[in-house]
């Protein structure tokens, strides 16, 4: 009886993926304890966030993909309406208009879009029978552009870029023409000097600092410089948990959120980094496998996009903290402190598991 109940409980959970996730989440509690200056309250709050996120994961994993497919369009429309609502009535905080006050709660519609947009595009291509035509890609591009432009206007460049990426992955996996891709890339590359010459001096200077933080050690470059020192000084085996000087002596800014990777790196060194990269790789490989085995167009496109978006978050965050990418506000998935992003992430993993565990037998 109990074993039946247990079986029912884990029926739609992918054991391998879940193991990787739980291990990473557990590690994140320890990293956060160190990063927050040994604050139990922070760790407790993070634990609550994690519990909520895992419950969401379980619930979503139990929803069959065809039902998800059915809500793709309404969810997308809701998201767009809310984004328009934000543009018109949103509350402003820190110079950006991102939140919508609906009665008692504040919601951030761009977070909904993170999952609604890939679902919408996957649904759209699933509806087109056979090989998609260029006009389908053009329309899909429009569906992608609407929320991206709205989010960019808020302004929230980081989120809009990542949402663009998640939509682009769907287009790519749906078979966007190679020639078109190459052409667009060449066009962008050849136009960039023109854009560059159109910029004001101070705008150019900002971009230069973005790529070379040492030019502005007191301003925008400070974060990156301190983060690189933290990573480099970690050495091959790290300074040990709670022993990172950069972290514990307050040199690292934003160290519980966007720059938490520097904390990890300083205290666990090159070996720790390889372990984390390995863990992330396992998650990504599992996600790609799920995508490749998925049975419907909708689920395979969605699974592919979710996995690659996870990769993009991880790569952009580690890249910016280690100084090979410009600083854009992107958290490290599964590790950074922050409730909303944790819940959205686990929700997307719930979808992956749902796709994998709701397969029907197909005659081959």
């Amino acid at each position: 009886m109990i074993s039946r109940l247990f079986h029912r409980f884990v029926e739609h959970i992918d054991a391998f993926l879940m193991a990787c996730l739980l291990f990473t989440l557990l590690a994140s509690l320890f990293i956060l304890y160190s990063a927050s200056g040994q604050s139990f309250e922070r760790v407790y709050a993070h634990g609550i966030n994690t519990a909520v996120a895992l419950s969401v994961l379980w619930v979503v994993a139990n929803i069959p993909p065809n039902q998800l497919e059915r809500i793709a369009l309404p969810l997308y429309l809701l998201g767009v309406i809310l984004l328009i609502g934000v543009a018109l009535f949103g509350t402003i905080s820190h110079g950006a208009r991102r939140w919508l006050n609906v009665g008692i709660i504040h919601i951030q519609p761009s977070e909904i879009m993170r999952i609604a947009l890939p679902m919408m595009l996957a649904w759209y291509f699933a509806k087109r029978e056979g090989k998609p035509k260029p006009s389908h890609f053009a329309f899909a591009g429009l569906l992608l552009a609407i929320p991206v432009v709205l989010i960019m206007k808020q302004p929230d460049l980081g989120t809009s870029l990542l949402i663009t990426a998640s939509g682009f992955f769907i287009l790519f996996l749906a078979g966007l023409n190679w020639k078109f891709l190459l052409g667009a890339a060449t066009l962008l590359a050849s136009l960039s000097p023109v854009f560059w010459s159109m910029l004001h001096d101070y705008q150019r200077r900002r971009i230069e600092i973005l790529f070379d933080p040492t030019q502005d050690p007191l301003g925008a470059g400070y974060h990156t410089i301190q983060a690189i020192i933290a990573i480099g000084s970690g050495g091959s085996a790290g300074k040990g948990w709670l022993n990172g000087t950069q972290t514990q002596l307050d040199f690292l800014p934003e160290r519980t959120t966007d720059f938490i990777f520097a904390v990890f790196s300083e205290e666990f060194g090159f070996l720790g980094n390889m372990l984390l990269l390995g863990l992330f790789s396992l998650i990504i490989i599992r996600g790609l496998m799920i995508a490749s085995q998925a049975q419907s167009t909708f689920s395979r496109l969605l699974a592919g996009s979710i996995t690659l978006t996870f990769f993009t978050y991880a790569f952009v965050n580690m890249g910016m903290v280690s100084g090979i990418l410009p600083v854009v506000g992107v958290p490290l998935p599964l590790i950074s402190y922050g409730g909303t992003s944790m819940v959205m992430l686990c929700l997307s993993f719930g979808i992956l598991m749902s796709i994998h565990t709701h397969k029907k037998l197909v005659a081959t």
Partner: protein
Amino acid sequence: MGAELRNYLHEQYYFRLRLGFTALVVISLFALLASRFYYLQVKQYNHYQTLAENNRISLIPIAPNRGLILDKNGVVLAHNFFVYTLEITPAKIKDLEATIAEISQFVEISPLDRKRFNRLRQESRNFESVPIRTHLNEVEAAKFAVNHFRFPGVEIKSRLFRHYPLGKLGSHMVGYIGRINDKDLADLEKSGDLSNYKGSDHIGKSGLEQFYERQLHGTTGFQQVEVDADGHAVRVLSSNAPIPGDNLILSADSKLQEIAETAFGDRRGALVAINPKTGEVLSYVSQPTFDPNLFVGGIDTENWKLLNDSLDKPLINRPLRGIYPPGSTFKPFVALAGLEAGKRMPPFSIHDAGYFSFPNSRHRYRDWKPSGHGIVDMQRAITISCDTFFYGLAMELGIEKLTSFVRHFGFGRKSDFDLKGEIEGLLPTPEWKMRRFKQPWYPGETVIVGIGQGYTLVTPLQLAQATSILANNGVAMKPHLVAQIQNSLTGKRHISPPVVQDKITLNPDNMDIVRRGMVDVTLPGGTAASIGANAGYSIAAKTGTAQVIGIKQNEKYNEHTINERHRDHALFIAFAPAEDPKIALAVIVENGGHGGSAAGPIARKVMDYYLLGKLPIAEAAKIEVKIPINATGNAPATTPRLVPEEELYD
């Protein structure tokens, strides 16, 4: 069925191909990250290890010296000097009151210091240090330094202060700097200049100090300092020197400024004088003025109240933000509009019976002279300021033609001046009235625009600029205060070139009629005959009065029975020498009565000094030699003097 399945397998095959490609991309990008980590953590480990070990190294910003502001002859209007200040970091102190009481045993702290401290404290964050006393002398600084150990959280700092040696003189032009507040910080963050202000406490708040903030501020340098466990600097590792700000050299002359301001006495008003050929502003007066030095260290509440609540409104920048009806000074421009439209050409003349009225209407638009001026042609109409003549001319031209013509003289639009906050003034049109009042335009309103009344409003700067454009035969030069910007390191000067803003082609014959009419104003028989007497050069001028309160149809205006603040504003515009103008100006004396007698003499003194180098004889004795005295006696070493005594009593 079979085809569908084939299709499905086909689709899946291509999907997996693409997925495989992305897997390759993932692997190579993660490999890139891994190699970056290898580079930082294994290869460069020693380097970063050292950096982290020495991360007690701190970066200390070094604020640049702010650029100087000099007049055309190099007289200093704004400069910097170091002072010792005693500063408290509230976050580090338990009992603030007790600490201040204890400090005052060593260093005198006045109630005013306390008030300013409280105000600044509210404006700054708890962990920032706030000055409790400024301008400590050597003895006070030494006294405190000996007892420093008793006061953690209280420090003596050496700060760069701004000083305006000439005090009240030209303060609306020079402006002042003040402590950076939250709004300034937000603006700096928006413009991306925040890191350049890491070491700065002050920023331009008004006048040229505000407009040329970018040029004056300079670039902040920084020093890498190794600090010991207590946070004290042990040695300098590397340093990047700050680049001082540029100096501003004005086209105005402080001596001329002093003469102009003194000429106003204690009356309120404004004067702007421009070189019509270049647009250089020669004098820029707003009366009364204020002492900008009060604002530098943060103004105390008492002085602030005194300035802000004064009925005379000394803080208002009148040339830029004071709006007045132009009155009769508008007439030369209306005259030119008429002549250029082919109306009232000589030998045309009217018979003025003292009023203008529409056919079939009993409403009379009265002339200022009840009995009328008799036979009047265009030139004489300007000279004697005949209202009746201009009522009819405005009517015949129509409001659209009139306003579109005089707009070329800068009325109703901003002049793109190098001070912030300029007001547009108002050149009324029927569309404007419909928008503003939802009412149609009445012909009677056109009539009174002809004599500069009605809705028409100008700023003194606009009026001066219009006069300057008239003097320059319709060519509008962009007005500016700063003539040169000097790199303070190389001494190289960038000269602001004259810029043509607008150009209207005028018939020289028409210009001649207007000019002759205006010259006659300052000759016997004109409305300002006394202004031209014994001048030694010819002055083209026009007087004006602007009503402050409305006069009813059958009422008479009696200057003596009216409250001083309700008296007419006196206006005066002039350019000289009339045949080759070198200076054009506008003067407004608030509630001064008649333009010729109240505003004219001020203009004459300014022109006399500018053209002939002549000091006003009657006033010469009254011009005080102002040697700037610093409140605490800590006067800077190089104190420029304004008017040398020996020259005064020549």
